[in-house]
């Protein structure tokens, strides 16, 4: 059986730099083996060492311009945890509001601008009948039980007209060299027109979300209103007009999520139902959630979380294991770092150990997949490879019987006529992200109301005082919560007022890691293996599966850290039972 060694580099429509190599069987198109590699390295953790812990958030945030405020907040929480600080109500709420807005922004941009073109054929939309497209849009909104965002013929006719002119010019710009016409695109021309119309409308909606972030964050990306102990944007929080503006924008976004994004998910689940049933892109089926969004005051890790933490293994919903940060380790067998020396966990640093490509043939470089082949490490939870992300949060919440999460998931399953098992697929991962957006859209305005009520009752506290000199003599702590793409943790050790050690284990490290010391595949690799390509010259199915994770490689590879990596060494706070 002849095989083809596909090299896909760059993987586009992701954050950061990634290469995938796949061994594809030529006649069946089956992906027999696959390797995911990150090809960029910065070393931000090394840079953080020796700095003032209060400055870390502003630096760690720059790990990623997409999950920007998540890194900012996690870093600050790690220092707060080390100093045993609890937040004022206003600070907790504003952080939740900014973070929740980020989730929605991230999910919306991910689905429409970074992912949808794996399912939607722009060129096919040129054959659409705008009137039928309007009917189609109304139909799927009805399935969702919502009012369609747009269902007038003119909207779709205008879009088609614009597309036609765009295509006629002969230069497709960012849509150029796409896989248009590939037979694994399954939407009808009308459905494609509806989806591409939403693509352009979402460009506008995501700017609303950027503005919402800026209202309490100062700017977006890279907001600047969080500090160790609280928040700084109290002037904005006190302003009823600002809160009102936020709510108006949030309601518009909510209408789009309910009237366009969700209907598109029902359409996708129906048209790609076969792929869902077959579990295409399912991968590991083991999920990890640290937990995130504290819903009440007090020590953060004692709070009730919007997304409860836990582990579900092998798709077994009957058994949710409590998350224990002590069981997180990282493996560098196949990553470009020196081997760990477990006996001295925090002494010395791992030097990057780049071993180059294995060979270059006819101008194509090939990874040394038997040895080291990525700048991303392979994290393990209790010696298990796991997936993190919105689907993980939905699955763990569902298995925990969390009423809110279960409500959104069950509603979708019933209306779409599918089972929870169908969610173990690329489409399911995409649906999980949408469900989370819907949930967030509903709760966000409640938080703004809660903030208003608290402030109107006279509480304008925005910061918890602390004595830095005493607190920072010898302390360590962690900030472990959720980012749009999954579980994200920062660990910090502080000595004599300076950062002695810093490390971060982030969503795309979990998902995009290479093989581990036992040769087990990472979450991306597991999801890609076994896929069938309809055209072995076009990696469409591979992109579909890998994009369904929302890769953020900029996050995943920022690491130079200490040897050993037994994060358990940081267990300093016995109250934490995330």
């Amino acid at each position, binding site marked *: 059986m002849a095989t083809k060694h596909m090299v*896909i*580099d*760059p993987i*586009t*429509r992701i954050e950061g730099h990634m290469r995938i190599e796949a061994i594809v069987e030529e006649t069946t198109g089956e992906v027999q083996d696959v390797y995911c590699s990150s*090809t*960029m*390295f*910065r*070393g*931000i953790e090394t*840079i953080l060492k020796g700095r003032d812990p*209060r400055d870390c958030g*502003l*630096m760690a945030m*720059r790990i990623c*311009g997409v999950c920007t405020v998540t890194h900012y907040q996690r870093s600050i929480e790690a220092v707060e945890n080390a100093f045993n600080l609890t937040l004022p109500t206003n600070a907790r709420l504003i952080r939740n509001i900014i973070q929740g807005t980020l989730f929605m922004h991230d999910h919306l941009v991910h689905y429409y*601008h*970074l992912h949808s073109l794996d399912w939607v054929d722009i060129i096919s939309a040129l054959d659409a009948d705008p009137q039928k497209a309007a009917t189609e849009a109304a139909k799927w909104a009805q399935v969702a039980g919502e009012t369609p965002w747009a269902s007038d013929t003119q909207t779709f006719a205008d879009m088609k007209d614009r597309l036609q002119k*765009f295509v006629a*010019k002969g*230069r497709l710009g*960012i*849509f*150029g060299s*796409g896989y248009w016409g590939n037979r694994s695109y399954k939407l009808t021309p009308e459905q494609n027109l509806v989806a591409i119309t939403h693509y352009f409308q979402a*460009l*506008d909606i*995501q*700017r609303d979300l*950027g*503005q919402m972030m*800026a209202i*309490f*964050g*100062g*700017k977006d*990306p*890279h907001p*600047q*209103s969080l*500090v160790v102990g609280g*928040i*700084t*944007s*109290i*002037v904005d929080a*006190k302003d009823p007009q600002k809160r009102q503006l936020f709510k108006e924008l949030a309601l518009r976004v909510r209408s789009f999520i309910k009237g366009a994004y969700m209907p598109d998910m029902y359409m996708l689940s129906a048209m790609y139902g076969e792929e869902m049933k077959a579990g295409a892109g399912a991968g590991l089926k083991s999920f990890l959630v640290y937990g995130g969004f504290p819903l009440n005051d007090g020590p953060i890790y004692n709070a009730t979380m919007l997304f409860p933490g836990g582990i579900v293994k092998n798709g077994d919903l009957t058994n949710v294991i409590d998350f224990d940060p002590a069981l997180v380790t990282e493996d560098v067998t196949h990553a470009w770092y020196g081997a760990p020396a477990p006996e001295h966990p925090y002494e010395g640093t791992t030097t990057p150990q*780049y071993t*180059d*490509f294995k060979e270059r043939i006819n*101008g*194509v*470089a090939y990874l040394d997949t038997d040895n080291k082949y990525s700048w991303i490490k392979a994290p393990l939870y209790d010696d298990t490879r796991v997936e993190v992300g919105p689907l993980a949060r939905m699955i763990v919440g569902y298995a925990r019987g969390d009423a809110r999460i279960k409500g959104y998931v069950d509603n979708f399953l019933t209306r779409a006529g599918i089972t929870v098992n169908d969610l173990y697929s690329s489409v399911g991962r995409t649906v999980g992200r949408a469900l989370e957006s819907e949930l967030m859209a509903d709760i966000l305005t409640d938080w703004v109301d809660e903030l208003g009520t608290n402030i109107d009752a006279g509480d304008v*506290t*925005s*910061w918890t005082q602390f004595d830095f000199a005493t607190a920072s003599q010898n302390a360590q702590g962690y900030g472990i919560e959720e980012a749009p793409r999954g579980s994200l943790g920062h660990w910090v050790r502080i000595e004599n007022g300076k950062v002695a050690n810093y490390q971060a284990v982030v969503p795309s490290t979990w998902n995009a890691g290479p093989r581990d010391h036992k040769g087990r595949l990472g979450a991306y690799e597991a999801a890609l293996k076994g896929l069938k390509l309809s055209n072995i010259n076009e990696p469409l199915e591979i*992109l579909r599966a890998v994009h369904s994770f929302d890769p953020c490689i*900029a996050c995943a590879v920022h690491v*130079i850290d200490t040897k050993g990596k037994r994060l358990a060494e940081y267990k300093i706070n016995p109250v934490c039972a995330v």
Partner: protein
Amino acid sequence: MPNDLSAKKLFFGKVTGVEKKDDAFWKKLYKQSEERISSLEKEVPFYQEEPVKVLEEDGYTRRDFMKWVSATTAMLMLPGFFEPLVARTIQVLNRVPVIWINLQDCAGNSEALLRADGPTVDELILDIITLEFHELLMTASGEHAERQLEDAMTTFKGEYLLFVEGSIPTAANGIYGTIGTSGETYVDHLKRLAADAKAVVAVGTCATFGGVPAAAPNPTGATGVMSLVQNKPVVNIPACPANPANMLGVILLYAMTGELPELDGLLRPKFAFGQRIHDACERRVHFDAGEYVEEWGDAAAQAGHCLYKMGCKGPMTFNNCPTVKYNRGTSWPVAAGHGCIGCSEPGFFDKFDRFEAPTPYNPSYNPASDFQIAAGLGLATAASALANSTPTQEEDHGN
């Protein structure tokens, strides 16, 4: 507050502003721009769609458009009589092909571009400029993406603006960043793409001055575009991330005049980086009155007073944040109650000892490294050839 904060140390750096020009200068530029726009108007557009029509379809009125034109003309520090030219330029903006590459980056500038909005017309940036290659947004991956890039480079040889996001790792022969099926290093990738570009625009503090990855101890030998690209005009638009209004401003000025904007000694457009943040700050009045926030959340913080004592780097940072702001002009860091962290300055991670305390310099930071950053300025000569500006070493770092 440390005692050694002399005013001299704080207010280092000269305000370059945009020098007052005489009527003859503006008349000449007007004529030149008019000729340039007319010639572009005669060209077959890459896009058949006329941008103003796109705007109308999206619900913008002529009045919205003219309002934007007026604001943009002011932001670019052009006299009011340039407004009709700015309006016409929007119509021909799509004749300027843009290739955008991501190197050692966090995608923050791409995200900022996506959220571009300040003036409403920016919202249509995807319609209006000819974005030929952008890894974050483009459909094709792998060899198909490479083909798209080759095609754009050939078709628009010598014409495209190369936007670069992210620093470039130079240590260990560049192995900390490779791209493409051939596994080309970022250093080679940048040089190859720059060779056929009209000009290179470094976007964000990483691409301009090395930014985050270049912070001490700079594990990957990260550096900015201008220390690698020779014999090609370079424009720097620093800040973390760069303000999308400034990105669009550079494209617009280029489309209108056929030249790069007037640059300062660090190759930054003067229209955006000619003024200290401090000088246009909305809280400046509190600085003058001696009303300072002394602690996060205190009464002064509640009242929106000056953040100087909380480490605001506004007095040492050149950028137009206070006037242009972010996200539809909604806010900016100082308005959100946090001091400026000087994110558009060279070496901003190392230059200031603390972000949240009023220390002007990290004692271990060598200000001379700013000059070193600007030192590869053989390239400034190339810039001046195109920009008709004379870059000088205007920064005086308080020596």
